[in-house]
């Protein structure tokens, strides 16, 4: 028993600093945001005295359902597309010969060397009616000269996918790199076609990487506001834009906090359920092993 409590103490010492970091810079600020949602706003952009539920009722803005729906589908679709691209990419990089693998990894990381805003503006240049991509598409008769490639939800989708694809590829690659490929041979040997070996053995084998990739894309996509702000039009606003607008334009912090809290809850609840379900499995396994010995 003494060794057990000693072990607990050690664990506490080791995890302590990161816990305090999370507490001070993540949990407390989030709680403050939640608290402000229940405060009245002052006309000068400050936070008033007392508590109110009024801000929550203000959220029944007739524009919001459409914006929330757009935010959700843009995030979902971009996550799905990113995963569909990341799994084959991660597989190919992991299977490539060592030198080619390093080059491919570098290519995935290279975009990070350029400022995020500059890369988004670059898309503006590409998609602009006089831009290179637009001109090329018109030249190839793939799009009509009148089509607008900028300032619509699909542009936002394209740029979100572009931005977050590396964040999906890297965890998938990390998992695929550790995957034991003799398992694929074993599956093929046992009568699985290439496709079934991929779906039945490879995908479950890299599931952690896929889950991480999913979170790495879905959460930032849900909260994105710079991308719709720059390449999106009035019809492609996302919830992040509304929060920014309430904060900087309307100077209504309680309203912005309420929207933020709503977004946080919307992300956290399904996430927690999935994570708990997913990460509970190894614990059960360990128990089983203990019983076996």
């Amino acid at each position, binding site marked *: 028993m003494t060794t057990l409590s000693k072990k607990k103490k050690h664990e506490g010492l080791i995890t302590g600093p990161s816990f305090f970091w999370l507490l001070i810079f993540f949990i407390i600020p989030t709680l403050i945001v939640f608290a402000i949602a229940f405060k009245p706003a002052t006309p000068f952009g400050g936070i008033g005295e007392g508590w109110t539920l009024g801000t929550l009722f203000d959220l029944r803005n007739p524009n919001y359902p459409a914006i929330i729906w757009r935010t959700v589908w843009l995030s979902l679709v971009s996550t799905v597309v990113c995963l569909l691209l990341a799994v084959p990419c991660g597989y190919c990089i992991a299977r490539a010969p060592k030198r080619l693998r390093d080059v491919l990894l570098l290519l995935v990381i290279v975009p990070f060397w350029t400022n995020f805003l500059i890369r988004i503006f670059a898309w503006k240049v590409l998609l602009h009616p006089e831009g290179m991509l637009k001109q090329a598409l018109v030249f190839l008769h793939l799009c009509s000269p009148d089509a607008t490639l900028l300032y619509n939800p699909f542009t936002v989708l394209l740029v979100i996918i572009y931005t977050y694809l590396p964040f999906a590829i890297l965890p998938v690659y990390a998992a695929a790199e550790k995957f034991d490929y003799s398992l694929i041979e*074993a599956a093929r040997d046992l009568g699985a076609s290439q496709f079934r070996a991929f779906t039945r053995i490879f995908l479950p084998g890299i599931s952690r990487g896929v889950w991480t990739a999913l979170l790495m894309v879905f959460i930032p996509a849900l909260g994105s506001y710079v991308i719709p702000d720059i390449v999106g039009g009035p019809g492609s606003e996302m919830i992040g834009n509304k929060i920014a607008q309430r904060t900087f334009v309307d100077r209504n912090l309680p309203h912005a906090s309420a929207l933020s809290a709503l977004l946080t809850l919307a992300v956290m609840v399904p996430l927690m359920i999935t994570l708990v379900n997913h990460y509970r499995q190894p614990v059960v396994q360990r128990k089983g092993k203990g019983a076996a010995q």
Partner: protein
Amino acid sequence: MSDFLVFEGVSKHYGDIRAVDSVSFSVNKGEIFSLLGPSGCGKTTLLRCCAGFEDPDAGRIILDGRDITGLPPHERKVNTVFQNYALFPHLTIRENIAFGPRMARWTKGEIDKEVSRMLELIQMEDYAGRKVTEISGGQKQRVAIARALINRPQVLLLDEPLAALDLKLRQRMLVDLDAIHDEVGITFVYVTHDQGEAMGISDRIAAMNRGRIEQIGSPAEIYEAPRSSFVAAFIGDTNFFDGTVTGVLDGSYCRLKIEGFPDVLAWNDKGLQTGNAVHLSLRPEKFKISREKPDEASSLNVVQGTVEDVIYLGSHTKYWVRVDDYRLGVNQQHRHYLLDTRPIIWGETVWLSWFADDSCMLERYKAEDENLLVLPDMEEESVPE
């Protein structure tokens, strides 16, 4: 049925390296056939060609009269037991065994029945619900075998199946494997670098070296009558002599001149003529070692030497005896209570004797194969890999 699984001139190159060089042989139905050789000899490549993971550059593989060269792995009635087991970590033992039948879309009832039967065969009924990470190495091995056998393959390929287990477990698993083979009666092709495993389990062995098959035969044939210096030295231990035939005697013996020895009599199974050069292999246990000169007998060779090294191993003692330029390995079995006798020790002058029938003439000899011998020479400290 002979010629059940036939390899016809199979070759496989990796870049400049000839992994398998025009190999032909056939495996009989129901036998345990071993491919035995050092690492890099091409035995695993041959197995992978048979399983469909590699395409041979040339040649054909025919299974039960059907050319299976070029078929993808999942269309061959062949299953493999992998060296590292390759069990699926996200599935339970039961699900692992059921994987093949599921891929073949058996009915659920049939799968359940067969999986239970397999679990019984490998005596792991109680572990069906466990994950792969929760069982021991020997159990994993048995699951890997069951997972392959449930598909009722025509041939079961085993790629160094016991290499990852410790010695005691390996010997137990070898007995288990033999029992499973007797039970299911499927043809086994067994790849190993361990001569003990191959000798113990095989009906026939193909000894491989550098992408070629040196000899095929029953374990006793391979051991007693090696055709090449490689087979003689890789399987068991031996002594090599080189000499010249000085006379052919009637009764199929010949007289040899070997440097440093009196005339040596040998069984002339190769039909050599006077003047021919000859390489002889003589296993260490064929010698008799004694302090007194043995009585003269026809076809008994006798030579005197000095004991240089002694290793006592309980059941027997290994001696290294110097005779002129030769350093001969001699195994002495202890059939009697050793403490009642005065054992031969280092430095003694002894008599070695052996019968002319116990040596074997080699068809092919390469000096480098002497490096495969146990403790080749004390002066050369370099130990081959």
